[in-house]
């Protein structure tokens, strides 16, 4: 169960004056159960890349293999791929259309050709797993707040029971509380439903806390691919392409330069706290000796 991208190239508006090469020679392997963050500044090709993963966009050249099958094969079942690889777009609340929230969540599983009972069961499960209040199930989705609409939209994709869940900037336009809620929810789903999650973002802070692998995109190609610690060690290069490492990385480097032997690999506030306290304690002990 993995997705392999082999030398994928893609350009928009080929053979016109507007031609833009959005992806250059992408080679990636996405394993089962991974929690991946894709990071890049605006226009770096993140969104284009993820649309390749469920076949919405066809690569200009190169191949994509889902569980060993070439998705560009004539007899490959695209519909099945789209149910296995769920994609939540940016501002997903803009795609709601049904009269009630429950009906909207039913749209995905209904398209899979399941019977009514299974469809409703799945919609119910999906709405529950995004923690949506049951009292609102049969209200119009257009009356909800932004954060709640987003939950409904995520549930709409979850109801298709994907094996891989891709979220394009799920926190865009949400306040800090809403952002934490959605990110915690995603991390919970990753653990409880045991699915592969790919999170697209341009905020390092968001991603550092949750993911265990980061792919940095720059101008259509993969710049770094590794664990958060490995990637953030390159913070100086990240800055050059308009990205930044989490605040704590800077703090730790600064402290290290000032002579405090802290752990430079700390990426979250918790880790940083531990490391600083530990270093201070060591210093104290040395001074007393």
């Amino acid at each position: 169960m993995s997705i392999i991208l082999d030398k994928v190239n893609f350009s928009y508006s080929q053979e016109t004056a507007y031609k833009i090469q959005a992806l250059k020679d992408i080679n990636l392997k996405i394993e089962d159960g991974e929690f991946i963050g894709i990071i890049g500044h605006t226009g770096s090709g993140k969104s284009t890349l993820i649309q390749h993963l469920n076949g919405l966009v066809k690569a200009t050249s190169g191949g994509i293999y889902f569980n060993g099958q070439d998705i560009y094969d004539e007899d490959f079942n695209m519909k099945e791929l789209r149910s296995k690889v769920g994609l939540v777009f940016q501002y997903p609340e803009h795609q709601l259309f049904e009269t009630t929230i429950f009906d909207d969540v039913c749209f995905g599983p209904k398209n899979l050709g399941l019977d009514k009972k299974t469809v409703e069961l799945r919609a119910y499960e999906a709405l529950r797993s995004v923690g949506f209040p049951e009292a609102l199930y049969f209200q119009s989705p257009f009356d909800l707040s932004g954060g709640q609409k987003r939950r409904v939209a995520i549930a709409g994709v979850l109801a298709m029971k994907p094996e891989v869940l891709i979220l394009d900037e799920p926190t865009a336009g949400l306040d800090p509380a809403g952002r934490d809620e959605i990110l915690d929810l995603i991390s919970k789903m990753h653990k409880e439903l045991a699915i592969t999650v790919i999170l697209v973002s341009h905020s390092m802070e968001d991603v550092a806390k949750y993911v265990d692998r980061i792919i940095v995109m720059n101008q259509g190609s993969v710049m770094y691919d590794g664990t958060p610690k490995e990637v953030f060690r390159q913070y100086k290069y990240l800055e050059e392409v308009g990205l930044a490492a989490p605040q704590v990385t800077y703090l730790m480097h600064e402290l290290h330069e000032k002579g405090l032997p802290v752990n430079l690999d700390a990426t979250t506030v918790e880790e940083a706290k531990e490391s600083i306290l530990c270093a201070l304690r060591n210093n104290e002990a040395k001074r007393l000796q």
Partner: protein
Amino acid sequence: MIRDITIGQFYPADSVIHKLDPRVKLFATMIYIIALFVFKGILGLGIITLFLAGIIRMSKVPFKFMTKGLKAIVLLLIITSVFNLLATPGDIVFWKWGSLQITDKGIINSVLMTIRLVYLILGTSLMTLTTTPNQLTDGLETALKPLNKINVPVHSIAMMMSIALRFIPILIEETDKIMKAQMARGADFESGNLIQKAKSMVPLLVPLFVSAFRRAEDLAMAMEARCYNGGEGRTKMKPLKYGKCDYISYGVVVGFLVLVIVAAVLLPFPQG
């Protein structure tokens, strides 16, 4: 699929035609259309063809790009040419079946009509391809200014036009995005019969309308926040000014029309 529409699309290039004043281009297009419908005979057609080919050449817009716009009217072309072919009475009848007949005049008419329509699309899309929508409405507003005196809200019309044109690519993009989002949820926009296809449009159209209304509201708010209250006393950042090239072009265009009319009078063959 949606991206194939070339009407109202601008093609950036560095050419004389691109730099012309939009009023000149509007005037030239009008004259060109008149010429298309007054010309008679092979000589007039030749002059128009030369004129069109010359301008296409000068505009540096690839010909392939222009013919894309023709695809949309293929059906219309076929219908007009078939009707003209079968329903025109003439002197020499080649074939007759009931009220349908193929005559010498019918053949000429159907060929001419097809050429006219093709040239019409080519000429007008040439204008939109070489003029940004903003320039176009600017030119239109200035050209129609005299109508203000008889209480025609020229400015509002021009503003509506430029907003509408501006929103075409945005809405196309939005449609594309919503379509993809629904396809990711398993929606199918292609298969099925007509009723199923119409039904499958609901998940696309509802969000599209919702977002269009939201955008309209936001835009109105943003315009009011910047004290927009119509055209009264409004100045322009880039006022339109005629240059040397523009005057020459006016001369060329008028000369072209005169030539076409003269050709129609002197050598009306083969239309009679």
